[in-house]
């Protein structure tokens, strides 16, 4: 039987240098649950080190936490990779290997805090998470797919760090599972602006960096279960599964 799931598939934690420090996994879970979400994805920049804490702290809530990451390609296009298993760690290893070298400058870019499910600080990530990898977008999409995850083009309506701003148009061979719209986009506006990409599935999410932004924009999924397999079916509009947003 199909059920309705309210999903926000793009949320940053305090591991992302540009996110607020109160975006701890535990507080994100609590807020997401209070706001009535059923599925969220934790998607920090080029790292997944707070995913485990978020998944653990969700245990006592009726909330599915997907394991994600927002990877920056060599063209500086942002791509979400979303999983429901530990293969996010394989992606993390590949991303770390290909992230531009350097150490995070905390005063300029912000802290990159790794915490556990009780909001206790485990340490700092010292990599330049704000930077990009030297992996082309096409390679990132293929890598995510090989690992069994969903590859979603981040905020294609934004003027920076989106596949459209960086590459001008989406090449035919780029088989994104979905294109994401940011909170200020409406379905009506998107239909006139992005009609060239109507063959793709569109989702909308918050890209929250602050607690107040969680669930600011959501996608409604009709699924049998909150899994990647089911979400992929929804993105392909298969067997009654679907995704809608306004």
């Amino acid at each position, binding site marked *: 039987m199909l059920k309705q799931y309210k999903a926000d598939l793009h949320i940053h934690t305090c591991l992302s240098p540009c996110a607020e420090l109160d975006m701890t996994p535990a507080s994100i879970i609590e807020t997401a649950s209070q706001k009535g979400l059923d599925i969220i994805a934790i998607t920090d920049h080029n790292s997944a080190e707070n995913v485990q804490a978020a998944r653990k702290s969700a245990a006592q809530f009726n909330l599915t936490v997907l394991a994600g990451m927002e990877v920056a390609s060599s*063209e500086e296009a942002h791509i979400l990779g979303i999983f429901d298993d530990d293969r996010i760690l394989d992606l993390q290893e590949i991303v770390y290997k290909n992230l531009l070298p350097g150490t995070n400058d905390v005063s300029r870019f912000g802290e990159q805090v790794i915490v556990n499910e009780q909001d206790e600080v485990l340490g700092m990530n010292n990599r330049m998470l704000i930077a990009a990898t030297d992996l*082309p*977008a096409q390679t990132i999409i293929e890598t995510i797919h090989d690992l069994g995850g969903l590859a979603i083009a981040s905020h294609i309506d934004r*003027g*920076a760090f989106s596949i*459209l*701003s*960086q*590459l*001008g*148009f989406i*090449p035919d061979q780029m088989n994104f599972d979905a294109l994401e719209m940011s909170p200020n986009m409406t379905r009506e506006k998107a239909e006139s602006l992005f009609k060239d990409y109507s063959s793709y599935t569109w989702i909308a999410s918050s890209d929250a960096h602050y607690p107040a932004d969680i669930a600011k924009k959501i996608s409604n999924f009709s699924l049998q279960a909150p899994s990647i397999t089911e979400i992929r079916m929804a993105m392909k509009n298969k067997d009654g599964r679907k995704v809608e947003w306004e």
Partner: protein
Amino acid sequence: MNLQDLIKDLSLEIVTCEESMNNEVTGAYVSDLLSDVMANSNVGNIWITLQTHLNIIAVADMKGLAGIIIVGNRKPAEDVIEKARAEKVTVMTTPLPAFEAAGKLYQLLDR
């Protein structure tokens, strides 16, 4: 001013389409956002960029640009070169960074 005049001063290596060295150059545009180049470059412009993605060929072809200069010793992949040949888009590379390439080009065009 045509492409031929630029080769030496900009330490250009021609990757594709030597036959179009007589393309008339009307100016130049420097940007790494392809969406911006699509919106703001003009016919006959040289495009200075560090992007090497395949889409640069389509953008240059669509906008009727005189050629692409890829800066900073970056080299386009084989599929990009093939596409450039097929679309007759001139691709050049230079070890110079964008600022220097643009500065030298500006002086040449100003002459």
